[in-house]
């Protein structure tokens, strides 16, 4: 007898004339077909294409978001109420400065001699002359008379006095110049007058100012840039009111003939143009309260300003307070009120739009600190399709995610991503066969030199199937940029989510007979248990690589094509590893459209 048989012959012998048992339902279905009905639910062929509408929807939504965010590029900024306030104030100040220039000439003419006295007023003219910024000493002046300002805030006659005392200021300033020559309160040569005056005068020795200096200041037309500001760029200015104190020194003789010095102080307002340090990075926008306080340093309430009439002029300025000045403060409040009120009425769409704007601006200015350097980050998003290659099953689908790129130099950069991949199962099924021997008997009598082992085998076939599965890929890539092309490669970390498997079960009973020669050694058949469990389809983490390239249409938009593969994963059991080999550790290609929120221009 032959010991070996061709498998072809075996198959032909066993199956060529094979017959199946009748199935009652088969004829029933056949009858329905003969009646013109289709009893078989067509498999949803579109299941493979069911992902297509979702993918298209995802592409449309993503494009819409990208376009909406892209429309916010560049110049638009969030509103800042202080800036508008300053702008309004500057406009008001400009209107002041543009008034009657002849008055400036009159004031300048009055300052004809070096002045004496404890305090030299620095007077503004109507031209574009800008006096130096208030110094620390002047601030101290304001502080010392703060309480007096509050009490005298309602004195509208102050202005009248200031005008009347204009000449006396000029005369007294010369005395102040002599008395405060060194501006040292503990100067042994200084008089009490000088000591008091030194507290009231600026740190800059005003006494040193000559007549020529004063004339020069009064007639100077161009804007004087304060020396405190480093850059000489043209700056916006705003006009503020400073309360100045004029102290008149009088020698009083009492009844005993003793002479003493009496001081008569009067207040007057000085308008000064102060540069607005908008370009100064140390500039801090004031709160509304502080803004109001800064713009109203005179201590005069806005209601008082409203009551000012045209003839009640501040001494340093012969022009009436503009109505617009009054409107500045109310405008601030009004604007704040509107803003506050508006906030309550802001719709969800507006809030979402503002939030998107803010996020987009953050994305456009995002940086990362490496070795004390702020390196920009270019965030973006991608969407595309994928397909598996070189595998017996086709797992295709789509993906989407977020990206971030950090340039190292002009030609190299590092990027990282978080991509969610959806993959459809096109027919991959895990079959688990198991056998249980129910009955076994040995027949030693039928054949003389052989034994027949009869088995009744309870066979079960368990099939695991799933429609789709999801993975997240997080590659870290090194990019090389050549013109509009980018080539990259790097490590790929992949996390596979748990698969939602469905099982199908079929049981059947098989009778098997083994005929064995009596002298032969025979190993009886044993049960074969199930190999796979649902836990074999649990989540897993893998490592692999990604290589690919992209082409940039413009600094924002690019096409990307890559090849990725998982080389290792953390599957422990042999069955789980088998599943990984069949559907997780398979190479795939991805084709994507990418959009960077921030323009990536390598010429920067």
């Amino acid at each position, binding site marked *: *007898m*032959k*010991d*070996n*048989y*061709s*498998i*072809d012959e*075996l*198959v*032909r012998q*066993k*199956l*060529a*004339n*094979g*017959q*199946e*048992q*009748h*199935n009652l*339902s*088969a*004829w029933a*279905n*056949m*009858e329905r*077909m*003969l009646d013109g009905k289709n009893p*078989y639910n067509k498999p949803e062929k579109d299941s493979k294409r069911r992902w297509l509408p979702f993918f298209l929807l995802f592409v449309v939504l993503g494009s819409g978001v990208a376009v909406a965010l892209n429309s916010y590029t560049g110049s638009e900024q969030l509103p800042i109420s202080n800036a508008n306030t300053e702008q309004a104030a500057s406009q008001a100040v400009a209107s002041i400065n543009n008034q009657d220039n002849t008055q400036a000439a009159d004031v300048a003419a009055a300052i004809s001699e070096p002045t004496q006295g404890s305090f030299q007023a620095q007077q503004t003219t109507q031209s574009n002359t800008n006096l130096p910024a208030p110094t620390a000493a002047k601030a101290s002046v304001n502080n010392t008379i703060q309480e007096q300002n509050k009490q005298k805030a309602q004195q509208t006659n102050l202005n009248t006095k200031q005008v009347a005392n204009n000449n006396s200021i000029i005369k007294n300033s010369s005395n102040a110049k002599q008395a405060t020559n060194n501006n040292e309160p503990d100067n042994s040569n200084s008089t009490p007058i000088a000591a008091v005056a030194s507290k009231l005068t600026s740190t800059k020795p005003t006494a040193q100012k000559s007549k020529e200096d004063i004339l020069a200041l009064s007639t100077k037309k161009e804007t004087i840039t304060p020396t405190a500001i480093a850059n000489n760029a043209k700056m916006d200015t705003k006009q503020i009111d400073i309360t100045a104190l004029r102290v008149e020194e009088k020698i009083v003789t009492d009844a005993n003939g003793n002479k003493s010095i009496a001081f008569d102080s009067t207040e007057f307002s000085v308008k000064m143009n102060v540069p607005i340090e908008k370009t100064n990075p140390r500039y801090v926008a004031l709160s509304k309260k502080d803004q109001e306080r800064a713009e109203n340093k005179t201590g005069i309430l806005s209601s008082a300003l409203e009551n000012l009439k045209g003839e009640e002029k501040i001494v340093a300025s012969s022009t009436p307070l503009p109505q617009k000045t009054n409107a500045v403060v109310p405008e601030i409040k009004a604007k704040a009120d509107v803003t506050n009120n508006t906030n309550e009425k802001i719709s969800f769409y507006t809030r979402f739009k503002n939030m998107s704007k803010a996020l987009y601006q953050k994305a456009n200015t995002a940086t990362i600190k490496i070795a004390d350097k702020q390196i920009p980050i270019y965030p973006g998003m991608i969407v595309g399709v994928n397909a598996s290659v070189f595998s*017996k099953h086709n797992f295709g689908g789509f993906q989407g995610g977020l990206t971030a790129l950090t340039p190292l130099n002009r030609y190299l950069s590092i990027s990282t991503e978080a991509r969610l991949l959806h993959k459809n199962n096109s*027919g991959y*099924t895990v*079959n688990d*066969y198991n056998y249980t021997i129910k009955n076994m008997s040995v027949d030693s009598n039928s054949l003389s030199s052989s034994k027949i082992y009869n088995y009744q085998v309870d066979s079960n*076939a368990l*099939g695991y199937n799933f429609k789709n599965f999801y993975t997240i890929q997080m590659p870290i890539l090194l990019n090389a940029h050549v013109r509009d092309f980018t080539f990259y490669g790097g490590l790929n970390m992949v996390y596979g989510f748990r698969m939602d498997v469905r099982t*199908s079960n*079929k049981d*059947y009973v*098989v*009778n*098997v007979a*083994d*005929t064995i020669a009596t002298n032969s050694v025979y*190993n009886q058949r044993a049960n074969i248990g199930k190999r796979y469990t649902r836990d074999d389809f649990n989540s897993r983490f893998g490592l692999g690589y990604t290589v690919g390239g992209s082409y940039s249409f413009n600094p924002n938009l690019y096409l990307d094509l890559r090849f990725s593969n998982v080389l290792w994963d953390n599957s422990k059991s042999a069955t789980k590893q088998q599943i990984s080999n069949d559907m997780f550790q398979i190479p795939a290609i991805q084709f994507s459209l990418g959009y960077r929120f921030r323009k990536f221009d390598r010429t920067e």
Partner: protein
Amino acid sequence: MSIALSHIKITQEDDIQAIIEGCLKGNRAAQERLYKRFYPKMMSMVKRYTNYHEYHLAEEILNNGFLKVFQKIESYEFKGSFEGWVRKIIYHSIFDYVRKNTKYREKMVFAEEERDVVVTKTAIDKLNYDELMHYIQDLPENTRTVFNMYILEGFTHKEISEKLNISAGTSKWHLHEGRKILKEKINNLNK
């Protein structure tokens, strides 16, 4: 004895004649008799081309084939075996499914791999119809098709390549792969 057998044979032929005539008239009972008469063999053929878990698919393919048999029965000219004629139509139904649902990748086969694969007698003795059918159904889809066409239907590699639009080398590869897998499973059964 031979007279009895010949009598049986004549009776069967008359029976087929009656069934066909009944089907031509649209007689449902005749259709049922024809269906049940050829169901066992035809289903065996169809199952060989489908996966083990796709019983409903096998039934659908078979019924689609029988539907064509009933629709085209008037074209039967009583030349040759009626069973052969039915088998041919059922096979076309199988092949329609195969063509729509399988895709082949080109493979390369070396000459050394073309030789037949053998199994031991012991293994054969242990193997029954159901188990072997199970193994055939468990083959990969493309391999299973080529294997069946070559081994059981008797097509040559050239004919298979023309029908499936693949190269002869791919056909040979699938045949070899099918033999290898079957041998491994049959030998495992022996352990």
